[in-house]
């Protein structure tokens, strides 16, 4: 297990480096003059020259990347070019809001999706199974930004049940949870369907296996057979999926954060790309990439812990 974990962690480091380098190059391929966009069309040549020097835009991309990577290894992600605040601090301020949104989104999706999948598998081809299937597919196919916009218009603007903007008052947990409801609903809705379909498919396969037949033959209650024996095995693919889901929730969070004006890392990266504030973009992207692959790594390690056969496959 330790060897498996070490190999996965090593691979994770390579993946993070590759992601950051690729995105680093892509950022610099964005059309438009960074100085013109960042400083506005009326910036003087002196201002543009200062900007270019500060951003190292006069140096080749690989030089800038190596400089960034070397500093990042020492915990220095650079400075915001306008406010001169440390990027690490800016990212650290935004990160909790996105992590909270990702956990809340997947959390409610797990609470609804997994029992729904189990119930469907336990009652295959019943009307409730068919209804669950329709609802699942529907939730999967509706993009999270559409859910965000409509939920905002219905529940915030029209009914005024939930707030439109922000993440709530710092220190007021209730207010923060209140502000989290609609974004988490929007980001997590698709995952309810995914999880329900995934668990249903796995459960149907497991429920047909011999050890389940044996359990039933011993007269164990159906609830115990389904939720204690079958689900334990059927949940394995779902655990791996959840690792990916965390990363997916991150990307879904970008739209939700823009629409609900939440100060998370997705919105931070979006705003900074628009402003061509490269140091913050680089720091934000690197952090997001690390979170994504770390979530995947944790999911893989958990799956390997639950199923020793997986440790043989890297």
């Amino acid at each position, binding site marked *: *297990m330790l060897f498996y974990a070490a190999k996965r962690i090593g691979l994770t480091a390579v993946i993070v480096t590759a992601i950051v380098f690729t995105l680093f190059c892509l950022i610099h391929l964005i*059309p*438009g*003059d*960074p100085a*013109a*966009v960042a*400083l*506005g*069309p*009326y910036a*003087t040549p002196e*201002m543009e020259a200062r900007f270019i020097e500060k951003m190292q835009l006069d140096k080749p991309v690989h030089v800038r990347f190596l400089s960034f990577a070397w500093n990042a290894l020492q915990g220095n992600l650079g400075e*915001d070019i*306008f*406010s*001169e*605040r440390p990027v690490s601090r*800016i990212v650290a*301020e*935004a990160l*909790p*809001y996105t*992590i*909270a949104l990702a*956990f*809340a989104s997947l*959390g409610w999706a797990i609470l609804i999706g997994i029992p729904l999948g189990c119930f469907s598998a336990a009652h295959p081809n019943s009307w409730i199974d068919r209804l669950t299937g329709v609802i699942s597919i529907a939730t999967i196919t509706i993009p999270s930004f559409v859910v965000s916009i409509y939920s*905002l*218009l219905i529940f*915030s*603007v029209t009914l*005024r049940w939930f*707030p*439109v*903007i*922000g*993440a709530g*008052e*710092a*220190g*007021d*947990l209730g*207010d*923060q949870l209140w502000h*989290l409801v609609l974004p988490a609903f929007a980001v997590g809705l698709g995952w309810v369907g995914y999880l329900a379909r995934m668990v249903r498919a796995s459960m149907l396969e497991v429920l047909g296996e011999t050890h389940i037949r044996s359990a039933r033959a011993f007269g164990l209650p159906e609830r115990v057979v389904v939720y204690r024996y079958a689900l334990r095995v059927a949940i394995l693919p779902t655990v791996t999926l959840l690792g990916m889901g965390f990363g997916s929730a991150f990307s879904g969070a970008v739209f939700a954060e*823009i*629409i*609900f*004006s939440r*100060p998370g890392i997705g*919105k*931070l990266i979006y*705003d900074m790309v628009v402003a*061509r504030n490269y140091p913050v973009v680089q720091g934000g992207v690197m952090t997001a990439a690390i979170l994504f692959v770390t979530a995947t790594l944790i999911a893989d*390690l*958990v799956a*390997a*812990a*639950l199923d020793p056969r997986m440790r043989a496959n890297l």
Partner: protein
Amino acid sequence: MLQEGISRRDLMLGAGVLTAGCLTGEVIYAQGRTILRSRNKADIESLDPLTMGTTQEREVMTATLPRLARVVTTGGAYDWEPSVYVESFEIVDDTTIAFKLKPGFNWSSDFGELTAEDVKYSFERAKGDSQWKDKWAAFDRVEVTGEYSGNIVLAYPFPAFTLTVLAHGMACVVSRAAVEAAGGKYTVEMPATCGPYMVKEWIPKQRMSLVPDPQWPGEKPDFDEVQAILVAEITAAELAYEAGELDVTQISPEGFLRYEEALPAGSAIANAGHLNYAWLGMNTEHPKLSDIRVRKAIQHAIDVDTALQAGFSGSVIKANGIIPPGLAGHREKSGYDYDPEKARAVLAEAGVSGLELDLKTMNLPERLVIAQVFQANLAAVGIKVNIIPLEVGTYWNQGREKKGEEWKDLQIYLTRFGGGLDPSGYVNWFVKEQIGNWNWERWTDPEFEELYLAAAKESDTEKRAEMYLRMQQIMEDTGAYVWLWHDPESFIHRTAIVPSIVPGGEFEYAYFKKA
């Protein structure tokens, strides 16, 4: 791994703790006070007059730092008045302004009283290494004549100096002692304030909160707190307003039309100045457009009224030049009319047929609609137009020589600039030295150059206006312009508040009142 000591229950507990940990902060929100909630369209990056750049930064600065003058609008024209910090303010001659500060305005953090030395330090610092140093070009020095008094000396006559510089956020005064103690510069942590409001807290990427300064000797502001909440997307801000989470916000052209049809209860729309100016430009050096008759034909072919109705439903003022209403030199009428017959005749006279042009525009909804109207207008006179929508950063490179090769093939383009409170800030983009930079039409005229220099120094308002009118006539005579619109900065607000918005669209929080 789980068998080695961590159960699934532990895992779930850990995740729960992590989630809860992410949600906790440190500040408790105060209830039961009069709070004004406005929209910030971008986060605060700098509150130092040297490096600040955005509207929302100036809004905070003008509420928390002294200025010598402020902008006022009288009968649709823009003027200035001495600020509350000033006891006397006199234009002595073309290059000297004498001022005397009122005593008793104290800097926070025990940095003493506001003095003329602070004014001298602030202005001379701004002229030296400032993002705004071009605007300070006419300024030479401040001569301190007493603890509270001094003379502002200009390097050359510039009648608009008070309105365009002293009344602007770039001329906010800082405490010399405080800034020097901070190392000579700062960004968002203001070392000392001296205004009706002071900064309560700044939560990055969320909001800036201001509260009345208890040591402010003047009239207490009407609001117990101002929360400038960051909502980058204007449509999100409109929804937040409709949901009751903002009290005042700028609105988009689409929002303006929507609210004109159905204004939310207890709301009103306020327009700041129409200081923006848009036109259809033509590159006079491009082979397809080098014949002035082709350009004149395009002037006659464009139906501006229809285009503005399609793009803005009449919510903007039709432009007849670049200088907007309220400023010296504003034109009431252009020298050409929409006349497709004449356009066809002029094209025939020039021997042009089968002309095909690229029309570049920023990819904004209203501009794309207007571009399509132009496309139809020009098709009606035999000119085929290909609309090329561009993202903002790419668009602003199109006519600039040092940004690539695009300028060589620039043909016609729909563009819009924003200006200040003096006409000199409108015509400066079209002088000879701007060819290859912002003079995308790429023409030059000796009379225009002379007038440009002379008008900036002319103190007679009527003569000045005549000069700017003449300059716009010269521009129009090149055939390189179809004047389009002056759009306002529009805002929606609760009728329970009376907003104070300067013509450029900045909030003056200290002057916001309860209705």
